[in-house]
C-alpha cells in the first residue's frame, strides 16, 4: 500500500489560456507541464533560433523594456550542476559553447562547459531482458519497414541490439535516416518504439519498461541458465522428485547427470535429452530458439526428450520439467512403458518452481546512448580540441550526458555511453540532417580549463545562469556527481 497522494490536475497560470493540466501531461502550448503536481517549464529543445549566437536582435514588445525578456527558449536543468539540456549548440564549431559555467565546489574553482552536441555518429545499445528468441544474431531490426540496426548478440539472460550509427543515419536512404533518427530520439527520451526483427519477433522497447514481444509483455528475467538453475535448487528437489530437467535454449540442465546431483547422490534415471551434450548434465541446442519454454520454440517440454534408457529408467519415476524463469513447469511420472504421463504437480515441486520465479528479476529494457564527441563540438570547449581529448583521458576532465554518468571508451576520441534513464526527461532533440542532439558537459578545474586553451572570457558564474525560468530537476542518478573530486586525478591533493 502506498500513501502517495496522486497529484490533482493543476491550473497553469503561465498565460491567459489557463490550461487544466493533468499529472504527466502538457498544456496547450507544449511549454508547460504538470510534473508530479509541480508546474514545470519544458520548452522543446530548440537550436533553430540560437539567438545570441546568430546575432538576432530583440526588439521591445512594449515601450519601457529593452527586449531582453525574450531568452530564445533556453532551458537548463538542476543546480548546482548545469546540464547541457536546452543549452543550444554552436554550429559552426569554433564559437564558444553556449554556457561555460564556473562554481566553487569544496574550495576548488570548477568549470563546466555545457553544449548540445549534434551527433551524426551515434546510436543506442539496447539490452532486452528475455530468453525468448527475438531474432538471430545479425538480423536486421526495422522500424516502419526501414532498417535501423541489427541484433548484436545474446548476453546473460538478455538480447542485445545495436541501433543507429552512421550506416543508418546517413549511410542509407533519406527515409532510412529519418526513421532511424526518429526511433533513436524516442528511445533516448524514454518513449516506446515498436520494432520488427527480420525472421524474428515484433518487440516494443522502452527504457526502464518490460519488453513487449509479439504483443506479450515479458515478465521475468531468467534466474540463471538451465545448468545454473540445477546448481541453485538441487538440494530443494532431492527427496521430492527423481529427475529434474531445466529447459533452456542455451544450456539445458539435467539433475541426475549434473555435478550438483552427483554430489547429492541422485541415481542415474535413464532420461535422455535431445541436443548436444557439453559436459555431464549440460546440453546445448535441445530445440530451436523461440518464444516458448526457456527461450526455445517448444510448447510441450516432452518434445526435447528421447526414449528413456530401459536399463536405467523405472516405472513410476518422478520427473519435473521447468523453465529458467519458473513460469512454465510440468510434472510427469513414467508409466509401464517408461513413457512420461502428465500428473498433478506435488506441492513441494510447485513451491520450487515458484521459488525460481521469485528469484528472477523483472525483465527490463535498458537503453544506452552511445556517441562520439569527435570533431566539432570539442572546438566549442577549447581552441585546441585535441587537448580536450587528452584531458578527458588524463582524468582531468569529466564527461557527463545530461548530468548522467558517462562511460568513456578507451582508445581515440571521446566515445561515450550513458544510461538514458539517468537523464532528465526530454534530454534529447534532433536536427533534420538527420542527427541526434544530445546534451554533453565537460567538467574540470578552472586552472585545467585555462591550461587546455579554454574560452576563459566566456566563463560565467553559476548564479548568472540560475534564472527563475531555468528548469530544475532533482538528482536522478544517485551515483552521478560530475563536480565531485573523486572523479578526478587530483582527488587526493588538498
Amino acid at each position, binding site marked *: 500500500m502506498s500513501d502517495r497522494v496522486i497529484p490533482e490536475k493543476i491550473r497553469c497560470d*503561465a*498565460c491567459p489560456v489557463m490550461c487544466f493540466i493533468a499529472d504527466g501531461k502538457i498544456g496547450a502550448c507544449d511549454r508547460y507541464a504538470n510534473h508530479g503536481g509541480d508546474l514545470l517549464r519544458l520548452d522543446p529543445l530548440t537550436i533553430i533560433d540560437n539567438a545570441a549566437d546568430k546575432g538576432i536582435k530583440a526588439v521591445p*514588445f512594449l515601450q519601457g523594456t529593452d527586449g531582453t525578456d525574450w531568452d530564445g527558449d533556453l532551458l537548463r536543468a538542476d543546480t548546482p550542476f548545469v546540464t547541457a539540456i536546452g543549452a543550444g549548440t554552436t554550429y559552426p564549431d569554433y564559437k564558444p559553447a553556449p554556457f561555460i559555467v564556473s562554481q566553487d565546489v569544496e574550495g576548488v574553482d570548477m568549470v563546466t562547459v555545457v553544449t548540445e552536441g549534434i551527433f551524426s555518429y551515434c546510436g543506442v545499445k539496447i539490452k532486452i531482458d528475455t530468453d525468448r528468441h527475438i531474432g538471430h544474431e545479425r538480423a536486421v531490426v526495422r522500424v516502419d519497414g526501414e532498417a535501423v540496426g541489427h541484433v548484436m548478440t545474446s548476453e546473460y539472460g538478455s538480447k542485445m541490439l545495436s541501433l543507429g550509427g552512421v550506416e543508418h543515419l546517413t549511410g542509407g536512404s533519406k527515409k532510412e535516416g529519418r526513421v532511424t533518427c526518429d526511433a533513436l530520439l524516442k528511445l533516448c527520451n524514454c518513449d516506446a518504439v515498436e520494432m520488427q526483427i527480420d525472421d524474428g519477433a515484433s518487440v516494443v522497447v522502452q527504457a526502464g519498461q518490460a519488453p513487449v514481444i509479439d504483443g506479450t509483455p515479458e515478465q521475468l528475467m531468467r534466474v540463471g541458465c538451465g545448468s545454473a538453475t540445477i546448481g541453485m535448487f538441487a538440494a530443494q528437489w532431492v527427496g521430492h522428485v527423481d529427475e529434474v530437467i531445466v529447459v533452456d535454449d542455451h544450456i539445458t540442465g539435467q539433475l541426475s547427470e549434473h555435478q550438483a546431483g552427483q554430489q547429492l547422490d541422485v541415481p542415474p534415471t535413464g532420461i535422455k535429452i535431445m541436443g548436444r551434450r557439453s559436459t555431464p548434465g549440460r546440453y546445448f541446442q535441445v530445440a530451436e530458439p523461440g518464444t516458448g519454454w526457456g527461450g526455445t520454440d517448444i510448447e510441450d517440454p516432452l518434445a526435447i526428450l528421447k526414449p528413456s534408457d530401459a536399463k536405467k529408467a523405472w516405472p513410476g519415476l518422478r520427473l519435473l520439467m521447468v523453465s529458467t524463469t519458473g513460469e512454465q513447469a510440468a510434472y510427469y511420472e513414467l508409466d509401464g512403458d517408461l513413457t512420461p504421463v502428465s500428473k498433478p504437480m506435488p506441492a513441494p515441486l510447485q513451491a520450487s518452481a515458484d521459488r525460481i520465479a521469485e528469484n528472477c528479476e523483472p525483465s527490463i529494457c535498458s537503453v544506452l546512448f552511445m556517441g562520439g564527441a569527435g570533431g566539432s563540438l570539442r572546438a566549442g570547449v577549447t581552441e585546441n580540441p585535441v587537448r580536450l581529448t587528452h584531458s578527458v583521458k588524463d582524468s582531468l576532465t569529466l564527461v557527463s550526458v545530461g548530468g548522467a554518468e558517462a562511460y568513456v571508451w578507451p582508445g581515440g576520441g571521446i566515445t561515450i555511453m550513458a544510461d538514458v534513464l539517468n537523464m532528465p526527461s526530454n534530454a534529447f532533440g534532433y536536427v*533534420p540532417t538527420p542527427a541526434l542532439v544530445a546534451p554533453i558537459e565537460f567538467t574540470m578545474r578552472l586552472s585545467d580549463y585555462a591550461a587546455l586553451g579554454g574560452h576563459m572570457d566566456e566563463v560565467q558564474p553559476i548564479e548568472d545562469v540560475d534564472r527563475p525560468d531555468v528548469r530544475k530537476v532533482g538528482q536522478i542518478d544517485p551515483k552521478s556527481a560530475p563536480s565531485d573530486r573523486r572523479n578526478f586525478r587530483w582527488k587526493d591533493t588538498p
Partner: protein
Amino acid sequence: MSAPQAVLLKDGARLHLQHGPIDLIVGADAACASDRTVAFDAARTRFETVLTELTGELPLLRTGITKARSAPAGVIARRMYDAVRAHMSRSFVTPMAAVAGAVADEVLHSMTQAAPLTRAYVNNGGDIALHLSEGQQFTAAIAGLTGAALGQVRIPAGAGICGIATSGQGGRSLSLGIADSVTALGTSAASADAAATLIANAVDLPHHPNVQRQPANHLHPDSDLEDRPIVTHVGSLSQGEIALALDRGLSMAYAMKEENHIHGAYLNLRGNNRLVGRIPMQSPKTDQEVAYG
C-alpha cells in the same frame, strides 16, 4: 503571467510574436522600406490582445457547432465560427478547429490595413495567412513528421488562395485521424485550417489494432474534443491500409472542393499521398544535406 513577446528575427525581415500557445512568424515586403515597419508595428499592436480576446470566449469556442448556436462576439472568434459553420453537417466540429488560421488572418488583416504591402504572410505554426499583390508568389515547404521536406507549394497571386493550413500527427494539435499531414489551400487561413483539421481526422482506420488512441481530455482536460479518441501512436500499416485511410480523407477533401470551401488539398501518410485540386506542387529539394560530426 507571461505577457506577449515580440522579437525581430536576425534578417530584420521577419517578426516573431509569441503569447502562451500562439507563435507567429510574420513577414512583409513593401515598395517603401518604412512601410514594413508600419506593418510590423500594426501586427504587434493587434497581437497584444489576441489571446485575451479568445480566452474571454473559450467555453463557447470549445463547444460543437450546431444550427441553434449563437455566434461568438469577438472578431477572431467570429472568423473561427464562420470557417467551421460550413462543415457542421459533415462531422463534429468546434470553432477551435480554425483558431490558428483565424489568428493569422486577423493579424495579416491589421498589417494590410496599415500599409501598402506587395507581399505579406503570417505563419501561425504552419497555418499561414497570405497577402500577394499582382505578380508576387509565395513558396511554402511541406515538411514530414521528421522535418524533412515532402515538397513545395508555389502559390501565385490572383489564384484566390489566401490561406494554407496543415494538420495531422505532426505539430501540437490533437488529431482524430492518422494522417502524417494534410495541407489545405483556401480563401482564408481559417477556412484552410478548418478543412485541414477535418480532412486529417477523416484519414483513419477505425479499430485498427496498431493505432493507439486516448480520450482527448485524458491528455488535455480542457480539450474541445472532450472524450473523443485522439490518435497517440500509429504502428506499422500495410500498403493496402495506408491506401484505404488516405482514400477516406480524399473523399471528404473532394466534397469540400466541390462546395468551394477549399482550392485543393495534399494528403500524406507514410510516404504515400493524394492530391485534390490543382496544387502547384514541386518535389522536395535534394541538395540540402548538411554534414556534422
